[in-house]
């Protein structure tokens, strides 16, 4: 299919996409969550007519606007990077992957961008009710946008509703409903949006805690914290529920991802979930070293997470790479053999078609169909290529999950002290509250790493490795693009932070 693969270029292309996505993922979750929180504040203003709620709404709206702009700027690059740097992928899956992106444009972006103008500039131009509706439309539009991009992303993790057409060498859609309502898509959407609500709540709590510590804007800060903490607590509880479902889906459809984020080298039953661990960086597959210097486990919990039973067998990385006939697990070694037959029979099929050899093409097609489920493995040279980076996965997952549980506790504390109206006297909690946003940011990026590093080396799980999906560019070109983007995004990020901090320092209009 491709004569030579420049791995350096592939890695630069991955780095470029990771850079863009991780920058975008600083701003996008804040947009998703803050849009709802602002809508709640404005609802209270609409119902009470209390001018101080209007000023509070406008203050958070101002911070929302600063964040929204750079989120849009980094977002446009993502859509077009599929074309510029992953053009083979774009052609091979455009039928399926392009559709949700186009729907996102039609059904979500216009809603967001049209009503954004009313939300910011319409206070004196439209009625109070129309303004409130517009604010909700921005929240709905931005979350609908998340829905469609996550449907597309979920399909990369769990390709359903499609068939591979050997004549065009493309993946073609057969059932759009299967793509939209795939269990992985539902799990991704609910987990990602609820974690974004949590993140935005942390942002509000952080800024408001700082005001309370500085004895400024007390009324506004207390009100902001109360609404955001309740929203944040509900969201963080839902994050746990949806996170559990996401891990269960990983166990079913991407067991390598689950084994990697638990650094689960050897399968076992019952299997324990690691609560805390320090990995041995020298650990290799099938060596005698212990994978951990130190670890604390919850017994049987990994079995429960992955198999919904207390004694289910959870395959380890070695099972998934080398196979485990006793448990009926086919490893990457065996899949590679079948995959290479699929790749060779596809080439035979195309050659036979070119020569109008009907019998040979029929035989080649039958062979291909029998092995096409392993097609992507046919491009590997070594079975270990199927392994994502275990260290990054393990630490990312445990940092994300640990912080997730910590946030629940912190939101409860803020609600308890907030409703007792004792926040101003609880300095220790406020000091804990100020850095929450940064912890939330770390949890968000860690979550993204678990989802996307865990997908590696696949562009489409088991079907298309990233090495085939890329555009035929030289590594210097992609490296140059990487540094241009890195420079520009960093300048814009610094500008955004400076502006945001200045606006926070300035604070809302006094009431």
């Amino acid at each position, binding site marked *: 299919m*491709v004569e030579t693969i420049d791995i350096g270029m592939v890695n630069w292309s991955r780095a470029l996409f990771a850079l863009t996505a991780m920058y975008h993922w600083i701003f996008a979750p804040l947009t998703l969550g803050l849009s709802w929180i602002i809508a709640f504040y404005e609802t209270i203003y609409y119902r009470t007519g209390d001018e101080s709620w209007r000023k509070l709404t406008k203050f958070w709206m101002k911070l929302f606007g*600063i964040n*929204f702009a750079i989120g*849009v*700027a*980094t977002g*446009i*690059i993502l*859509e*077009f990077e*599929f*074309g*510029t*740097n992953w*053009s*083979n992928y*774009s*052609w091979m899956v*455009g*039928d399926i992957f*392009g*559709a949700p*992106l*186009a*729907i996102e*444009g*039609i*059904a979500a972006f*216009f*809603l967001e*961008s*049209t009503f*954004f*103008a*009313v939300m910011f*500039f*319409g*206070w*004196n*131009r*439209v009625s109070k009710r*129309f303004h409130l509706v517009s604010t909700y439309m921005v929240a709905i539009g931005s979350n609908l946008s998340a829905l469609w991009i996550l449907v597309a992303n979920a399909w990369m993790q769990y390709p359903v509703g499609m068939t591979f*057409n050997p004549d*065009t*060498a493309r993946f*073609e*859609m057969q059932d759009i409903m299967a793509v939209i309502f795939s269990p992985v898509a539902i799990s991704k959407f609910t987990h990602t949006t609820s974690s974004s609500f949590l993140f935005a709540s942390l942002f509000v709590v952080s800024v408001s805690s700082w005001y309370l510590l500085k004895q400024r804007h007390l009324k506004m800060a207390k009100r902001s914290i109360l609404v955001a903490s309740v929203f944040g607590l509900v969201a963080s509880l839902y994050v746990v529920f949806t996170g559990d479902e996401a891990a269960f889906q990983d166990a079913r459809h991407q067991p390598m991802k689950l084994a990697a984020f638990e650094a689960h080298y050897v399968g076992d039953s019952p299997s324990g979930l690691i609560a805390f661990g320090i990995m041995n960086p020298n650990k290799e597959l099938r060596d005698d070293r212990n994978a951990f210097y130190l670890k604390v486990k919850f017994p049987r919990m990994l079995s429960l997470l992955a198999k919904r039973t207390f004694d289910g067998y959870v395959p380890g990385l070695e099972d998934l790479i080398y196979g485990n006939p006793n448990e009926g697990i086919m490893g990457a070694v065996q899949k590679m053999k079948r995959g290479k037959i699929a790749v060779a029979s596809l080439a035979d099929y195309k050659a036979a078609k070119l020569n109008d050899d009907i019998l040979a093409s029929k035989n080649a097609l039958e062979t291909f169909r029998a092995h096409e489920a392993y097609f992507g493995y046919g491009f590997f040279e070594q079975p270990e290529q199927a392994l994502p980076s275990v260290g990054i996965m393990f630490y990312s997952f445990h940092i994300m999950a640990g912080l997730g549980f910590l946030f629940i506790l912190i939101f409860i504390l803020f609600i308890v002290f907030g409703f007792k109206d004792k926040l101003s006297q609880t300095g220790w909690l406020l000091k804990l509250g100020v850095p929450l946003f940064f912890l939330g940011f770390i949890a968000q990026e860690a979550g993204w790493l678990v989802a996307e590093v865990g997908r590696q080396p696949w562009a489409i799980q088991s079907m298309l490795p990233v090495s085939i999906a890329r*555009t*035929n560019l030289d590594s210097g*070109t992609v490296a140059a*693009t990487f540094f*241009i983007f890195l420079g*520009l995004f960093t300048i*814009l990020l610094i*500008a*955004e932070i*400076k*502006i945001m*901090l*200045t606006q926070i320092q300035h604070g809302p209009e006094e009431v």
Partner: protein
Amino acid sequence: MIGSLDLSTLQAIWWLLVSVIGALFLFLQFVQGGQTLLLDVAKTEDEKTLIVNSLGVKWELTFTTLVLFGGAIFAAFPKLYATSFGGAYWVWIAILLTFVIQAVSYEYRKKPNNLLGQKGYEIFLFINGSVGVLLIGAAVGTFFTGANFELNEYNFVTWTHPLRGLEAAFNYFNISLGLFLVFNARVLGSLYLLNNIDFNSAPDLEKRLRQSTGMNFLIEFVFLLIVLVSLIFMSGYGVTEDGEIEIVAYKYARNLIANPINIILLLGGLGLVIWSVFITRFRSANHGIWFGGLGTILVGLTVFFLVGYNNSCIYPSLTHPQASLTIYNASSTHYTLTAMTYVAMIIPFVFAYIVYVWRAMDFKKLSLDDLKEKAY
């Protein structure tokens, strides 16, 4: 119902939809044109503020239309998306960068402590309005003039020019099309601002915008003539009945006369643009944007129809002509086009709420007093 349409009909429908989105994007480039006017038409800080805030409630609409244009091509003509974006790499990266810097500029320009200063963000807006639009024109120009690429048996693109897409900017036709768009956007920008701003607080700005409309139209007209004359005499790639691709003399002139709709759209569009400039310059009208906008949409539709229909190549390969793309060999499958056509049925609804909100927001012209509450 839609599922019973044959594939070629669906492909034609989707080229029509892509053409409509592309033509609307050309109209909405009044935002980009308006941004360039900050440099020469706005003389005072208040005038700059009025222009930026007038455009500031519309820029996202243009931006979103560009994103939708990309998304529609990705879904409906993925081979065009993959070949053009992956092949003409640097020109698309350059275009994207100009839109990245635009997206932050409205919000950050006047904010205290914004790192780059007000001037920095105004330069960003100018780059987006000039270089961005010019390169979009150059990229669209390659749909006619072709590009240096080949496709292997799996349709993976290999670019055969070392400039990797930037060579498009060194072709006189592409550059002329780009400059036509730049100056057309400036005309539209002037017309839009004349319609949207209350000039009681800035009477000189109104005068300069009227002058700008006329001057930019004259320059635009020169490049338009170059584009039109070139198109009439240009050879193009056509598809024969047995699927071979061959060079056809006067291909786009033939396409023009093959369908009277093309001629009606082109002449009607040009007439409307000329009329909009005339009434704005000589009759002090403020509603020229609607004629100029509709005219631009009609001319834009003609451009996309000429390149897409009548067995033409939407992306000719100069080095490997048989690899050239048509709406038939570059499209998605029947299933995807059918599903997407059902989705596209919500477009009139989207259009309706955009018009409703636009009217609600613009019923009162923008004055400096309005900017006391919230301004960019």
